[in-house]
């Protein structure tokens, strides 16, 4: 749609600006403020310059948390995106079953995140949980509170359980928008199933898939509640992701300076990677518009 230039449109945006300024800019400035100052209590602050940033950059703790976070996000993206596409390809196209599948699949998305944690905490326990009990009965050594591998597996399976539906729903919506004529043309050309997927379905889904990847990346990078409830960041620090570490530092130990420096770098990393995704996404949008 052709848009007209109208600077007065700013007035329509004002309420949002005011609200977001209050709920985002002010708190963010507080963080910036803390990150460059030191305090010895009594609300006395001293200029510390970039000291905290230097300290955090050389802190092994932060690098470890960042590394774990990157590995976690990479693993869940590598599982959820292909699985989501696969599920979407297998969903019924129309009728009662299509709606039923949609409703049931969306169910995990609407469960409060700590309840998601609770569900898996219970489900994975070897004494009262179906999963833990079954694995134990099969003779597999599984204990998510003590064994690092079990803890990671639990957190990853939980995230796959929680969010694969999101990818599937988006991919499904992308598939639904493909006109039947495309399939007919492919049929005439005797295209293989793989060719149909590769040259018709995948390109048509690319827009929504980018959104799915962007959302999944952002949310997995901020994950806090679910692993916190299930493993509490343990065993040891094995599942202490960035948010968990940050909350420990800021609200647990009240190390304001380092925590604030940490926050800013954390936010910048998310911003940077998301900006890349966003640019790719808008470019795709534009290309489709020209087609």
């Amino acid at each position, binding site marked *: 749609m*052709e848009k*007209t*230039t*109208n*600077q007065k*449109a*700013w007035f*329509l*945006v004002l*309420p*949002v600006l005011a*609200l*977001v300024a209050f*709920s*985002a800019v002010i*708190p*963010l400035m507080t*963080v910036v403020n803390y990150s460059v100052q030191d305090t010895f209590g009594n609300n006395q602050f001293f200029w510390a310059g970039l000291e905290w940033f230097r300290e955090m950059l050389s802190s092994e703790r932060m690098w470890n948390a960042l590394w774990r976070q990157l590995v976690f996000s990479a693993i869940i993206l590598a599982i959820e995106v292909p699985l989501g596409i*696969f*599920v979407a390809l*297998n969903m019924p*196209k129309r*009728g009662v*079953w299509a709606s039923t599948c*949609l409703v*049931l*699949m969306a*169910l995990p998305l609407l*469960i*409060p995140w*700590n*309840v998601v944690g*609770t*569900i*898996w905490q*219970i*489900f994975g326990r070897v004494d*009262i949980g179906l*999963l833990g009990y079954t694995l134990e009965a099969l003779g597999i050594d599984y204990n998510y509170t003590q064994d690092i591998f079990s803890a990671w597996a639990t957190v990853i399976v939980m995230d796959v359980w929680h969010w694969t539906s999101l990818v599937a*729903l988006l991919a*499904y*919506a992308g598939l639904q*928008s493909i006109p039947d004529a495309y*399939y*007919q043309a492919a*049929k005439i050309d005797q295209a293989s*199933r793989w060719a149909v997927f590769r040259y018709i379905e995948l390109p048509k889904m690319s827009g*929504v898939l980018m*959104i799915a990847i962007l959302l999944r990346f952002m949310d997995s*990078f*901020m994950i*806090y509640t679910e692993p916190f409830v299930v493993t509490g960041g343990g065993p040891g620090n094995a599942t202490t992701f*960035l*948010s968990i570490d940050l*909350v420990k530092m800021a*609200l647990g130990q009240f190390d304001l300076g380092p*925590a604030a420096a940490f926050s800013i770098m954390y936010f910048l990393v*998310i911003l940077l990677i*998301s900006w890349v995704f966003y640019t790719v996404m808008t470019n795709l*949008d534009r290309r489709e518009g020209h087609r």
Partner: protein
Amino acid sequence: MSDTTMPPAPARTTPARGFALPRVSGSAIVMTLYLVFLLTPIYWLFNMSLKTNQEILSTFSLWPREVTFENYMTILTDPSWYMGYVNSMIYVVMNMVISVTVALPAAYAFSRYTFMGDKHLFFWLLTNRMAPPAVFALPFFQLYSSIGLFDTHIAVALAHCLFNVPLAVWILEGFMRGVPKEIDETAYIDGYSFPRFFVRIFMPLIASGIGVAAFFCFMFSWVELLLSRTLTSVNAKPIAATMTRTVSASGMDWGVLAAAGVLTIVPGALVIYFVRNYIAKGFALGRV
């Protein structure tokens, strides 16, 4: 889900979907497996909520031997429990109303006009959706304490605006793009003022978009715990934070915990039915 429950076979073997032919039964199997994977943990929670603590800990069974509703009774009769649900509902609804109200004019501006810095502003709004709540927990706590809003519903509602307002703007903008601009122009020629046009003509046209935006605000405010827990202590304590109470000296009260969990799933399950066909469009921020 067996084959008989799938859509009638002829519909799936039309030339258009001819490629689906060998997948008909395969799809059903894949979907069944996936849905079983999704529903089993939820079933297990439900199963436990109907058992007594003694039965949970002593016997292992796939369904409750003696169905008890005591766990639910505990929650529904104890104010410190059920007020958690009331508090959550209050701030979720407040957040929904605030977010959609401020997002409507902004989304209209983004969908209809270009103005100085609009693209940057749009991305800046999205960055708020990317902001980790953990980063904001402490500053929010201090901000709302200093203005005397700590432990009130409005504090949580405003805090959740951080990620819900950008989301609402995005979703509404997507829906508004689908409304032809000629409608606006005709209305202005007919002598409608902007507010009157917006409320009388435009809003009914994007009613489904407003519904979807409201649903997503509801959802993300309902599932969030970190901020709502940090900003409340007693009066506005959300159900999610109340649930941590089940850890007592005598061990975990698993039955009540499970029942509380099941009750938090119910509101979502109820509203999801109404927006089932728009879920994907909402998640795609109106861009499908």
